[in-house]
């Protein structure tokens, strides 16, 4: 036993004496340090993301609630059409002083003496000016309501809305705030009666631009953005993919194609406002296209998105294993067949990801749109891409310039809407990737 054991002992002791210092500890320490750097980098990133989301959501979630007042409105013939002209004069119903109806209803509801004009004025200020168009639309749509009393849900004024959401500091001296003590008292009275309440704000999705926050929404901007995304997708995907296939697969490799490649890479880094200037000079001034139109915006964003799509598509085409090309060529497939039957389907996930990232980028782009006049006060939905419209990020930009408290929450609310769209687009990219991804 001892004979067998002793050589082993000798070997181990010899190796212990001669063990070289190969820096094992140092190497592991370096690895641990590197991991710590990585984790801290990710932690910092997540922290700022959380701060961003928290600040946007905490400011913006209230924008999705709107205070409304439901009042029984008497569509009194005395106010609307005292001389009974509506059959002969079609404009009669358009020009009625509809807010009077609301004022009367409020006065009745709150039991105010109609002769105390300052009090009446304060009461009618609690309701949005948008009641004028709201009631007009009701009457014009159905004149038979005249003479009847029906309950109508009206938007509260933005200041009352803010006060009801607790955003106005009531400790500030009454003269320095926009909501008076009497109004707050009425507000609480109406709330207790169940007349004034908060509900989901559908208006923020459907209204157009308005100087009254309670009647402002991103509806027009959403339509404008949708038109532009459609134009960008329809133009940039085929042009970008065709250009990349040609450059990657067919074009000879020479100085000219090198130059083109360098330029495409540079174009991807050109500041977007430069594209706006280009669009203004070429599409609006030279080609005479309408200003503020989603069509021009779409063209400009297409130019901006193309380099991104071309770079992503070329990378995806390059990533297809050469063995697949050889296999198809070896069978006698032509170059075109090889590309369209084998290479392109395999590159599809990469192409789609690049396209959707490009689209998401275009959706959030503001600067070029400012230059082609899409920073506009557009109240009506654009019927076609040729009509003036605005875009979601531009709407955010415009609201961010407004002073009212209610616009602050709407700005954050619109950012939340934009972020939700971006999340859905990225989700779409992931799903398409999964759908097209194949192993080889």
């Amino acid at each position, binding site marked *: 036993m001892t004979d067998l054991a002793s050589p082993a002992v000798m070997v181990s002791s010899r190796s212990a004496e001669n063990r070289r210092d190969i820096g094992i500890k140092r190497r592991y320490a370096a690895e641990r340090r590197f991991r710590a750097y990585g984790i801290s980098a990710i932690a910092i990133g997540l922290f700022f993301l959380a701060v961003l989301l928290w600040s946007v959501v905490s400011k913006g979630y209230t924008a999705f609630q709107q205070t409304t007042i439901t009042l029984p409105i008497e569509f009194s013939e005395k106010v609307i059409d005292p001389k009974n002209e509506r059959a002969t004069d079609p404009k009669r119903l358009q020009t009625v002083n509809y807010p009077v109806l609301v004022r009367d209803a409020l006065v009745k509801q709150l039991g105010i003496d109609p002769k105390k004009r300052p009090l009446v004025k304060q009461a009618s200020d609690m309701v949005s000016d948008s009641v004028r168009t709201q009631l007009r639309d009701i009457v014009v749509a159905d004149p038979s309501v005249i003479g009847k009393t029906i309950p109508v849900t009206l938007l509260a004024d933005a200041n009352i809305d803010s006060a009801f959401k607790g955003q106005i500091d009531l400790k500030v001296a009454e003269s320095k705030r926009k909501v008076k003590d009497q109004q707050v008292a009425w507000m609480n009275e109406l709330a207790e009666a169940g007349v004034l309440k908060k509900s989901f704000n559908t208006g923020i999705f459907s209204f157009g631009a308005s100087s009254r926050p309670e009647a402002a929404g991103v509806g027009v901007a959403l339509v404008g953005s949708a038109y532009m995304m459609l134009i960008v997708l329809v133009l940039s995907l085929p042009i970008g993919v065709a250009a990349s296939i040609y450059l990657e697969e067919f074009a000879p490799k020479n100085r000219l194609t090198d130059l083109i490649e360098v330029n495409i890479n540079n174009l991807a880094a050109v500041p977007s406002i430069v594209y706006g200037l280009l669009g203004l000079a070429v599409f609006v001034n030279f080609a005479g296209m309408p200003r503020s139109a989603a069509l021009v915006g779409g063209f400009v964003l297409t130019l901006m998105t193309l380099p991104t799509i071309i770079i992503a598509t070329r990378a995806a085409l390059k990533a297809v*294993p050469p*063995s697949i090309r050889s296999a*198809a060529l*070896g069978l006698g*497939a*032509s170059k075109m067949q090889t590309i369209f039957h084998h290479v392109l389907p395999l590159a599809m996930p990469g192409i789609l990801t690049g396209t959707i990232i490009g689209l998401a980028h275009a959706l959030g782009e503001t600067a070029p749109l400012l230059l082609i006049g899409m920073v506009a006060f557009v109240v009506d939905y654009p019927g076609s891409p040729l009509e003036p419209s605005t875009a979601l990020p531009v709407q955010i930009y415009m609201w961010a310039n407004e002073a009212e408290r209610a616009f602050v929450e709407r700005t954050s609310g619109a950012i939340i809407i934009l972020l939700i769209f971006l999340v859905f687009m990225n989700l779409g990219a992931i799903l398409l990737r999964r759908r097209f991804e194949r192993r080889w």
Partner: protein
Amino acid sequence: MNTVPYKMIGKDVSVYYGEKRALFDVNLDIRENTVTALIGPSGCGKSTFLRTLNRMNDTIENCRVTGKITLDEDDIYDPSIDVVELRARVGMVFQKPNPFPKSIYENVSYGPRIHGLARTKAEFDEVVETSLQKAGLWNEVKDRLHEPGTGLSGGQQQRLCIARAVAVSPEVILMDEPCSALDPIATAKVEELIHELRANFTIVIVTHSMQQAARVSQRTAMFHLGNLVEENDTDKMFTNPDDQRTQDYIMGRFG
């Protein structure tokens, strides 16, 4: 053996990659219904020569071929010859199994489809079945023809690639080290298959295995540094080669 007609004739074939010359005036004839093995150390030009036979070198930038290669009297580098038609007549099997990431059925039927060799479902079914049978794969995959070809084992994938090449009914099949990525059992199956295919096809195979060359081929050509050193009947080549370099290589003295 010498009475077998020539299928392909290479005359003074030289290949340049840019400035670099990879093949020096190679004169090598490929006999019909014969397995010709190309051997030699790495970088000797045997794969380059193989790829000139169906013009796969065309796909490489800066590659230039001089000399003359004929297939049944037609000069394959003549401008009147269409490369697509040539590759339909001279098929190729690659070093690494490279099935398309599609079903087994689609892999085999792709060639006939693009060349219009089959039109109806029944015709496609038939060509898929006969090709897979010729490649000795039918019994293993007949119940899962619509599963992905990439799900097969390495040896099966390579036989699928052979079936895919066979489906186009080529006259010549080029094989570039078809067994180098396979285990010995899969290799044996492919070698057996090459043996059977010889009845219907002319085969040129590049291999690094001397034993494989000896087992599957009737003719062997030895390349060294871009030159054709010796071309002979396989039996003679491995027992009594004419050239000292061949002898040294086969004995494992260099390479």
